[in-house]
């Protein structure tokens, strides 16, 4: 049974960053010191509301940190990846690689 072999071979999946937009946020922040809300929105081609909801979930999990400031009169929201978020992404990458390995071996 391939499915059962794969289940035994891979660690637990992090549902929080499995979602596409959240995975995109964490991946982008992993290679940038910080990114603004607008940078992320355009990079991930998503809407304000969608990005806000998903970023909030990552913030609540302490995967990303958010700082708010003003640039002139305009509010500026900036995100950074936390150590916990980086570890979560590494675990997720390990998980995907383990899954692919298990499927190939199966």
């Amino acid at each position, binding site marked *: 049974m391939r499915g059962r072999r794969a289940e035994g071979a891979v660690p637990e999946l992090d549902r929080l960053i*499995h979602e596409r937009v959240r995975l995109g946020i964490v991946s982008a922040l992993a290679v940038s010191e910080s990114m603004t809300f607008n*940078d992320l929105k355009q990079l991930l081609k998503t809407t304000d509301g969608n990005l806000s909801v998903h970023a909030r979930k990552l913030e609540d999990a302490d995967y990303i940190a958010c700082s708010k400031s003003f640039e002139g009169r305009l509010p500026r929201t900036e995100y950074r990846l936390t150590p916990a978020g980086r570890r979560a992404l590494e675990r997720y990458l390990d998980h995907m690689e383990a899954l*692919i390995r298990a499927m190939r071996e199966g």
Partner: protein
Amino acid sequence: MPLPAELGQNRPTAHPRSLNAHAIDDLRYIRETMERAGSFTAVSGWGQVVVGVIGFAAALLALGSSSAESFVRTWIAAAVASAAVAGLSMVLKARRAGVPLLSGPGRKFALGFVPPLAAGALLTAALYRAGLMAWLPPIWLLLFGASVVAGGAFSVRAVPVMGFCFMLLGACALVAPPAWGNCLMAAGFGGLHLVFGVIIAVKHGG
């Protein structure tokens, strides 16, 4: 752990083979997102190659200049043409990659790039009026290099390295005989742009 159901989240199928495809798709998505957010440079490598060709053409034209004034005019015309090519190629590259130019890497690049360049423009005007044209090649090479280093601080490594090479050439031009100015300009604005343009184009998305 119910892997199939979890990996099927947001996706209709949960067959083991499709799980494998989903995992590969996820890894590809992560890699592409990282490339666009991190190692992407808004500087267009192919644009820089064209700028290098313009640099060599300007050096050839300046070589036959009858006066210092025509030498300066030739290089200023080349600078204007190069700025247009570099700007347009940056816009096209960012648009093709789906990366925001004005609020993203392009904005960071411009914030570092423009101030030394503006200083270079003012010094050019002052030295031209004072008739000290021999100082222009080292000033141009040094300040353009400083612009690229400052702008490229937020970009991929090839960009600030190119700026540093320009600064080295500028330092050479400071101590070299004035007659070498045009050759050093050709090496910088022609040669360095060509070499680093190809490196950026090959390694960093065009």
